[in-house]
């Protein structure tokens, strides 16, 4: 969908056009679900959170400013808040990760292989073990297809911070996958 069409849909939805809002749902449901599923323990919970997200979007659309942050970024903030609320209800704890970025060259590291050769389900499981911020950046960059700038707007960070966060997220994924592999081989 082009930006122009999206703008039209948003404008209509803001005026209370539920059909237009339904189209927005069609457009974004998978993206929202993909993210919230990474922060919830079951598909059922993810569906509930997805519904909650879109209800909040409907309630808040009136205050959305087309000239402010991109709609995707705005929507993600709502999704993220809803996912955080859901996540807090659970007791799972993210795997601790070191805070500082390192100098590992991505393309030459063993981590490339660890991530690249993991199947989708393994990766999904690993993403669920990331910190909330790391999972967010993975979702925004790889699943929502947002640029660094847009991701920064979504997360309320600057672009450098997002790059570092993304780097750490991928390294953490690799570590989780490698640990899983080690356990599997033991």
């Amino acid at each position: 969908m082009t930006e122009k069409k999206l703008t039209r849909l948003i404008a209509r939805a803001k005026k209370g056009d539920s059909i237009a809002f339904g189209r927005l749902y069609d457009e974004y449901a998978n993206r929202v679900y993909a993210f919230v599923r990474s922060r919830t323990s079951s598909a059922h919970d993810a569906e509930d959170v997805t519904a909650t997200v879109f209800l909040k979007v409907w309630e808040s659309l009136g205050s959305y400013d087309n000239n402010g942050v991109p709609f995707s970024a705005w929507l993600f903030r709502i999704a993220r808040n809803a996912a955080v609320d859901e996540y807090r209800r659970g007791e799972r704890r993210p795997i601790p990760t070191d805070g500082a970025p390192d100098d590992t060259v991505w393309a030459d590291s063993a981590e490339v292989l660890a991530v690249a050769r993991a199947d989708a389900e393994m990766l999904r499981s690993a993403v669920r073990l990331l910190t909330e911020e790391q999972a967010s950046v993975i979702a925004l960059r790889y699943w929502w297809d947002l640029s660094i700038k847009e991701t920064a707007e979504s997360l309320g960070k600057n672009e450098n911070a997002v790059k570092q966060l993304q780097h750490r997220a991928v390294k953490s994924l690799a570590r989780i996958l490698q640990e899983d592999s080690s356990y599997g081989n033991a």
Partner: protein
Amino acid sequence: METHEDFEHMPVTALRTAAESMPDQARADVRRRVMSTIQPRTRSGFFLAQSRRIAAAVTAATVLFGGGVAYAANGSLPGSTLYPVKRAVENAIVAVLPTGSLERQVLVGLAERRAEEAGALARRTGATQADVAGVLEQLRDSVHIAGGVTGLQEQELLRIQSRIGEVPDWAQTAIEKAISAENDAQQGAGSAGPSNEGAGSSGGSGTPQEPAPGSGSSGSGSGGGVSGSDSSTGSAGSGGQIQQNGTQRGLGN
């Protein structure tokens, strides 16, 4: 044999495919939950909304496709005093329609109406392109809305086009273009991603798509692709993001 470039792309592709798609049934169920909740503001409003939906289902078919007084009253054209009323009635009806085939039928019916109006305006003596420009925009809107994510079927398109009637060549071209271009773009976007195939396979095809909503670079329809404009992510060490020169892929909806 894997090249260095392939090697760099590997984690990106793997991460994309890790996006979990919402199963079709779940997506439809959640949609129903959301859409049935956003109408009413109170508990009594919920039941009122349900009864309105049923009434609307009957009324919509009568008003939009039936004959008699209702049909005659709906004959106003853009620019006339009654036209805003006609559109308000349409909007009121579609707002309470239940999701599904009836909704689609009504929405296609509205697109037919817009085509009919465009034709009627174009047939007026001395009509120019400027006279129909406004209704063409509305026609594009209605085709877009009716087509949803996947676009209209061929027979639906033909029905809409058949409503244009006899018009000058310039108008015929402009109106048909408005219909088909909108639908072509929509079908392209709708087929962008692998949709809901199993494990959220979102990045396999690399099919070039139109720019995505809200971002200028995000995935059409449903994300999942790699940004095409952000060169900052293409280098090693920044997380391995690879650029695709404006192409993007969707998770699919």
